[in-house]
């Protein structure tokens, strides 16, 4: 059963921990993170600033800047192979080819001194073993696909608007038809109308190529509209994860509930919002026990003392809360996330 589950998974992150060591201080950016993803699935990774979302993505890509970053433990099994153990040369063949990544800021993600055509063609040239001419040909096609006329391949990034740049970035990411696309806040810098366009485009392309996707965001709405699964991150840990409907409708973790209480709802007016108190813990000195306990409205003395283990809720998703632990037995995460 376990075996089978693992082979089915396109990506399975097990117990991934990443730290940054700066000036003798250690930032625990990602702590024992577990995530699995199947082909074609879209996972929404939600969390506030500093929760470790980008670091997780970089961890998958093998791009954690070192120094100061360091992967402390864990596995990133992609299509049966642990990426963390993969030789550099081979890993380069994976990056941009089988896994690609879209970074947060379209304004700065493109090299200002190369034409967009060159930048798209480059990734094709590296991975597809085609001629230069063919790569440019394909680059043009990719541009068309994201809704930009191919003739503009010779333009430089500064000649494009923000939304167009983001599409170019998407075109680069999809150029080699990857199995997994990691999109780190791909629309945060964009206006809502443009965001809607870009999200539509991504959804469309994804379904066309059956690409699995990790969508990093802090917008619960975006996740609701785009994702199949969701993982809520808090202080480097996934505190709640599972099928989107399940998590959204049977929210178990107090943090997730807090998030929902923090955003005004367009459909239901409330007099006052009901936010989480306090703020993210200092990542260099995380609280003991449950990392969320200092902000948790339901926290008890035990919360400060013992770390919660992932718990399978009755509806079938996973949450990490001691309150749940007393009710439900801890389970093997890999199994339940099937």
């Amino acid at each position, binding site marked *: 059963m376990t075996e089978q589950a693992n082979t089915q998974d396109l990506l399975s992150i097990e117990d991934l921990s990443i730290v940054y060591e*700066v000036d003798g201080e250690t930032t625990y950016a990602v702590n024992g993170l577990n995530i699995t993803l199947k082909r074609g699935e879209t996972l929404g990774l939600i969390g506030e600033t500093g929760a470790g979302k980008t670091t997780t993505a970089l961890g998958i890509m093998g791009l954690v800047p070192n120094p100061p970053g360091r992967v402390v433990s864990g596995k990133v099994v992609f299509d049966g192979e642990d990426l963390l153990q993969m030789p550099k040369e081979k890993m380069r063949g994976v990056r941009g080819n089988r896994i690609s990544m879209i970074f947060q800021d379209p304004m700065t993600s493109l090299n200002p001194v190369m034409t967009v055509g060159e930048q798209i063609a480059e990734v094709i040239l590296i991975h597809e073993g085609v001629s230069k001419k063919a790569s440019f040909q394909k680059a043009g096609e990719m541009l068309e696909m994201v809704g930009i006329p191919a003739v503009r391949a010779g333009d430089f990034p500064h000649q494009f608007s923000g939304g167009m740049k983001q599409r170019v970035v998407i075109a680069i990411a999809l150029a080699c038809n990857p199995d997994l696309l990691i999109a780190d806040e791909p629309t945060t810098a964009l206006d809502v109308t443009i965001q809607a366009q870009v999200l539509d485009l991504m959804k469309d392309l994804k379904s066309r190529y059956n690409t699995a996707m990790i969508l990093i965001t802090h917008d619960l709405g975006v996740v609701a509209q785009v994702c199949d699964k969701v993982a809520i991150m808090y202080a480097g840990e996934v505190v709640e994860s599972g099928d989107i409907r399940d998590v959204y409708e049977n929210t178990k973790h107090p943090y997730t509930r807090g998030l929902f209480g923090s955003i005004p709802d367009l459909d239901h007016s409330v007099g006052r919002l009901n936010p989480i108190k*306090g*703020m993210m*813990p200092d990542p260099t000195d995380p609280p003991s026990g449950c990392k969320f306990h*200092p902000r948790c409205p339901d926290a008890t003395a035990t919360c400060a003392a013992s770390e919660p283990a992932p718990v399978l809720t009755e509806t079938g998703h996973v949450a990490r809360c001691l309150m749940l632990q007393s009710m439900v037995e801890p389970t093997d995460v890999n199994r339940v996330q099937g």
Partner: protein
Amino acid sequence: MSQEMTLDPAQGQLDKSPAKGAPKKRSQWLEVWHRLKRDKMAMLGLLIITLVVLAAIFADVIADYETVVIAQNLSDRLQGPSAQYWLGTDEFGRDIFARIIHGTRVSLMVGVLSVAIAIVMGGGLGAVAGYYGGKIDNVIMRVMDIFLAVPSILLAIAIVSALGANLMNLMLAIAISSVPTYARVVRASVLTIRDQEFIEAARAIGASDLRIIFRHIIPNCLSPVIVQGALGVAGAILSTAGLSFIGLGIQPPEPEWGAMLAGGRQYLRHAWHVTTFPGLTIMITILALNLLGDGLRDALDPRLKH
């Protein structure tokens, strides 16, 4: 409304931990110092500069000016280093070590004062140009362009030879020739600061232009000026030496490193120590200032925080 409502919802338990937002007044300068302290090279620079400053302060204790530094002793001319003369003697039989020690005063004074003058003049002009923009900016910067169009060493030479070679004029010349640099540096940072929201915020609470310039803009554009200043002192010492080399520097018998170096250059092959030691002194001092300057640049740039 109720007391409860104004209570800070952010005051969770976390706030009581002394971790980050510690209540002690730790200004940015203190942070910079802490960052700088970790930079070994910068600390080496600082150490050397401290020694140089101490030498300047205690020069009279180390060697008497009248009897050792400027008094000639023609029978002991051009002697190599010995127990009596640690670094040998110059063409007039004067103790080079004593002269180098006293020379720190002149060099430091020229270096620091000329940079100070340049910062005040250049910084002021740059701040005004950057803050007001438009025509004022245009006029000031075009004038700066004029100064910039003439290589600074030439400008300094022209000024010194026009005004006459003495300490004051030398400092003035070096200062004037570096005014445009500071004007540019300050203007550039004023331009970035001017459009920041906290300036607008100050205007919104009714702060006057003067207050905005002095309270809000200047303190925030100090860091590039400080870096430039540290390097500028180095440059000024080098310029002084250069001017001395072509005979337009500090006048004798005042011991100045560049003048010593220049004075000894005809003995280069016969009495190597006469140029070598002042040369090394200049080099080490400048190196120290550069190390410190570079260290400061890194320490002041939060993005370089490693």
